[in-house]
């Protein structure tokens, strides 16, 4: 009996791995991904411009690490990972239903949860890669004169970890929305640019209902910049609590997605 369960688990993971490699390949190939690549490589361009202008101007020099953390804060945290997670997260289910290709997948010997989890990991990996390439290059470019200062790497890793957590968390949430709702994108837009922003201005514990709260709690308080008001009223949770909450949210929505996907029937006619 024990063996049987073990076998089943092993089977589940091989299926998941197969789904994962299928969609990793597909996801890297499609035209849509390419435009998002452009978008996520823009920070590198920005970093280059900033660096060049610093080299050629004699004015007041701004610390590379300061610019870096500023960029992360505004561009990645408030914009890019949301857009990417929204698109790829809802795609996990919606694109199969809209493209009517779901049939090919549900008539394979794969448990449905393995499908959801496999595709989720493939797509989040793509998003993480996209983000990581941009982040790494812009970090190197901005700190090119101080690359031996290892304390900076610590900051860098911290940001990267927070972004990864953010992607995991948002993607699982949006994937759930995609399995559940038909008009998932509109809801997602309202959530990410409405709710996530607005909630921060509410007093008390209200802000704990936004994912971005936990992400920000994990970052060092940033100062300055035009967008500093976005951090308005942050009453950070403790790092341990934040990490726990982020994983919890991710987990809950992963499970919910699996459940909904297994139980709901998708009618492919338009």
């Amino acid at each position: 009996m024990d063996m049987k369960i073990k076998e089943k688990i092993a089977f589940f993971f091989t299926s998941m791995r197969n789904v994962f490699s299928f969609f990793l390949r597909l996801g890297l190939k499609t035209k849509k991904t390419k435009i998002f690549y452009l978008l996520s490589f823009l920070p590198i361009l920005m970093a280059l411009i900033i660096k060049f202008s610093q080299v050629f101007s004699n004015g007041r020099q701004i610390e590379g690490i300061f610019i870096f953390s500023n960029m992360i804060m505004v561009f990645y945290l408030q914009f890019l990972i949301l857009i990417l997670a929204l698109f790829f997260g809802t795609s996990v289910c919606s694109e199969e239903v809209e493209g009517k290709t779901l049939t090919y997948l549900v008539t394979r010997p794969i448990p449905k949860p393995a499908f959801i989890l496999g595709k989720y990991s493939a797509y989040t990996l793509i998003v993480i890669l996209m983000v990581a390439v941009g982040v790494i290059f812009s970090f190197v470019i901005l700190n090119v004169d101080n690359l031996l200062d290892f304390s900076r790497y610590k900051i860098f890793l911290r940001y990267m970890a927070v972004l990864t957590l953010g992607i995991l968390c948002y993607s699982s949430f949006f994937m759930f929305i995609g399995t559940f709702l038909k008009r998932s994108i509109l809801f997602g837009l309202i959530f990410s640019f409405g709710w996530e922003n607005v909630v921060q201005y509410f007093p008390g514990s209200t802000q704990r209902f936004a994912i971005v709260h936990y992400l920000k709690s994990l970052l060092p308080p940033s100062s300055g910049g035009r967008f500093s008001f976005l951090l308005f009223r942050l009453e950070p949770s403790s790092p341990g609590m934040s990490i726990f909450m982020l994983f919890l949210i991710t987990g809950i929505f992963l499970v919910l997605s699996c459940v909904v996907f297994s139980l709901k029937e998708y009618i492919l006619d338009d």
Partner: protein
Amino acid sequence: MTIKEKGYAHWDGKLQEKRFPWFPITRLGIKLAFKKKYFKFLFSMTLVPAIIYLAGIYASERLEDFRFMISESALFIKITPAYFNSYYTNDFILFMIVMIMVFAGAGLISDDLKYNALQLYFSRPLSKKDYIFGKASVIVFFMFIVTIIPGVVFFIMKLIFSGSFKFLIDYPWLILSIFGYSLILIAFFSFYTLFLSSLSKNRRYVTVLIFGLYVFSDILYGIFYGNFHNHYFSLLSIKCNIKQIGAYIFNQNRPLPVPWIYSFLVLLFICIVAGIVLNKRVKGVEIVK
């Protein structure tokens, strides 16, 4: 006695060269937009600022009557071109316009691509220009209601409430400004939306792009400005460009010390690129090699 002929019957009318062959496309686009869930609600939300501003105009004339309600130091509402400018360039209105684009504009071309409808259009005596113009007019229609109409209504109401033509004599160019600014705004958003809508068969994707690029351009400006404190980076932001042009046209102080003509050129450039891509994407048949 005559018996109706069985089978296929000819139509005895005559096909005509219409002056506006694109008009049915527009009518359909508007009809389909209103069929969407929540669109009516969203659209009425867009008109809320217009109502508030209209109330402001009324209040400005009747301020004497309310004097007892407000303390002496209360701000006196003055109806000047600045008042108009603030209506046209406030963040809320611009945001709502983007939302309307998402609802009514995202599917305009991408749905036709998805459902193979382009060949139905182009097997009729319609040119590509007619098709694009018809689709663009859907956007023009909604934008018209949000921009030109409130402006003209404010203007006329101001004249009526004040009971004199002093306002017209003071600012004779204002009505032209309203039209000029609105037309630029309309032209820009039409190109922007149709261009993105023609990029993909998938409306979900278009929605993300319409919304994302608008927000993105503004964030880009924020980052660069944060680092360089150079206002010329505002040219990257769609929102800032619109505000700059608005300020110039309404003869106000520009929010940023950058010549407005640059902003104008940036938007013009976007429109031209959009036009070129649109022209390439809209075809009777997709050719795959």
